[in-house]
């Protein structure tokens, strides 16, 4: 798989994951690893800058939560602007896939 393509899609991938509910860093890393069967591993040096960038764009926000064992985790959650942006990009993505499918997909 083209890793550059994956890297460019990181903000959308993160927005899409967080639209399912608030998540903390390690949970995101593990979810991505699990869903891509280990093809794509997000490293901390890529994940946190991407999350902070999404936060700077006010598409997501973060909050700290203390666990029953006393440890703290920083959760990230999608904001309305992020959800709207994701929806718009999903529509664009579907149009793009349909168009490419017209060329590379099976012809009926």
């Amino acid at each position, binding site marked *: 798989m083209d890793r550059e393509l994956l890297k460019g899609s990181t903000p959308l991938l993160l927005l899409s994951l967080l639209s399912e509910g608030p998540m*903390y860093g*390690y949970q995101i*890393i593990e979810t991505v690893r699990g869903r891509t069967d280990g093809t794509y591993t997000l490293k*901390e040096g890529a994940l*946190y800058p991407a999350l902070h960038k999404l*936060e700077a764009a*006010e598409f997501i926000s973060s909050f700290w939560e203390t666990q029953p064992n006393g440890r703290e985790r*920083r959760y990230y*959650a999608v904001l309305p602007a992020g959800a709207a*942006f994701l929806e718009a990009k999903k529509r664009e993505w579907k149009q793009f896939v349909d168009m490419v499918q017209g060329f590379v997909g099976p012809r009926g």
Partner: protein
Amino acid sequence: MATLAAYLGEVERGLSVLPRRRRLELIRELEANLLDEAESLGLASEEAVGAVLREKESPADIAKELVATESENVRHRRNTKLMAGGAIGLATGGYLSILGLWLGRPWQMSVTIGLALGLAVGVGIFWIRSHWQRMHPALRVFLAMAMGTLLATPMGFAAVDKVLTFHWTLLSYGTFAGYLVERFQSGRKPLGWLGDNLAFTALLFALATIQQRHWFLEWHDWSFVTRSMLFNFVLQAGVWSGLHLHRLLDGQWLLKPNRI
């Protein structure tokens, strides 16, 4: 865990250019991540933790990525807030300048009102609203209106005739701008625009009645009411444009190719 502390210490050294508070927050976050991983993998010994850390990016590389993004984020936030607020200032100041030319009134007042609405209220609201984004929508609107009113203080001095007087009724434009910023966030239909405009114009009339300002007497003239509504519409359009410009710039910046 001494190995983990040493790793984090190295990352922190790489973050030395950042403000202390931010640096500590980033380290706290990274530490939480690594502890989650250690817990998930059931790592108990120093050797096991050390082996996992050796597989990771070097502390210097992580710090470099974080520092580069931090400065880029700060620059982006500053620029988008300025441009979004500028859209409000340009719309209102521009409209008043044209109207001032038409009516033969001094241009200074138009520029002052445009600057006060754009830079004080507009930039201010776009800047501080990030702090209340996770709150209930109704509370967000209330906070935006309260902060808009406060930020409009320079506007109170903007309509100077000959003597420097504070016109508190002008603060209501800050209240309206604050309301609009939050209201437009979730979309607004044309009827909503009209309703907001009518309600705010009625509020202005009520305030003018209470204060008995000189322009209270002008309200019997329909052209004055129309002009007032038109200005409120320009303010609405300015806030709408500012918000959409903000979102457009955010989206473009987010998806532009970078190191990540």
